[in-house]
């Protein structure tokens, strides 16, 4: 039986707790040049390497989001091109009331996947119900700027949806 060290235990705890968060970020950034599995593994490797330097000054979730988003954006920059995501790995569980339609959901998801890397990070954090202050911390953008940019992104999504209908 393998005895885990403190660091290994911490890593296993963190990854099991935030697995879904990391996976969702990676799924939104994955695409033809960036397979989901590679992105996910890259994020985990960066978390592992950065675990020693995490001093607990920020919230764990802030640190995880920052690592995941930075890794995904860096991956795309390194590959010198940005492809819209292939959303094959994302599955949606419809509401029990049947209020929301899966079709609309996937249409919106598809529109979000076409956003630029930073806009995508902002909208992902907003979708995950992060407050503006935390989004600002994660993305290193001022809180006021986060609000402005999110407003623009929402308008942009609306315009993209309207264009799609035409």
């Amino acid at each position, binding site marked *: 039986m393998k005895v885990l060290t403190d660091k290994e235990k911490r890593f296993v705890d963190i990854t099991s707790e935030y697995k879904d968060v990391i996976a969702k970020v990676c799924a939104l950034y994955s695409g033809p040049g960036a397979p989901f599995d590679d992105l996910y593994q890259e994020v985990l490797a960066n978390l592992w390497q950065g675990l020693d330097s995490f001093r607990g000054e920020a919230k764990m979730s802030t640190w995880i989001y920052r690592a995941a988003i930075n890794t995904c954006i860096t991956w795309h920059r390194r590959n010198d091109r940005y492809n819209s995501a292939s959303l094959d790995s994302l599955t949606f569980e419809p509401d029990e009331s049947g209020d929301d339609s899966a079709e609309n*959901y996937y249409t919106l998801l598809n529109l979000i996947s076409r956003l630029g890397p930073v806009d995508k990070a902002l909208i992902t954090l907003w979708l995950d119900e992060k407050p503006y202050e935390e989004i600002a911390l994660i993305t290193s953008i001022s809180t006021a700027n986060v609000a402005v940019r999110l407003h623009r992104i929402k308008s942009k999504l609306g315009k993209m949806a309207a264009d799609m209908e035409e």
Partner: protein
Amino acid sequence: MPEDINLDKFRAAWQRTNVSSETLSHDPLTMTQKVVTGRAHSSLQRLARRVRISSYVAMCMPVFAPLLVTVLDLPYWIAAVYAFFGIVLSAVNLVFARNIEAVRLAQLPVVTALSVVQNIRRRMICQRATSFVIAITIIVLIVSTSMHLDPSLSGWEFAFGIVLGLLVAMKKFHRDWRLISDTENDLRYILSPKQQDVE
């Protein structure tokens, strides 16, 4: 924004979104350690490629050796020493590159892999230091002989060449040093001091 785009509703649906991938069911620790070992291996292979290129560059030295006789009017033996140094340097680098390429970090236990990388670092330092001392000796020999044969020669051209050469060598060494350090650091991240396997 058109009415049919209801982001707030979408946000609620996003909470019920799951990612289905086989990767998520793998043990994160083992998977991560494999990825980090892969990175270390990739850094080491980049170093091997650079050493191999150095070997090809050193192969050019015997080709340029006759110029020492025809352009600088130096004695044949200096050209021979210069060419011989090029051949030896090329051979040593080629063997070194092949040895690095043969290392399969992923197949080794981490402690052994780390020890292999440290040996490569030590060998790199020894090899570079020896090459540097011999190269400086040959350069001093070429410069002093040239100036002795033709006192009208200005030392500025030599000085410029030496400084330029030193800068290139330093930059190259710095890059190689970073690659081997990255490899070692990646392996150290995997290695945990208290890790032990017990039955």
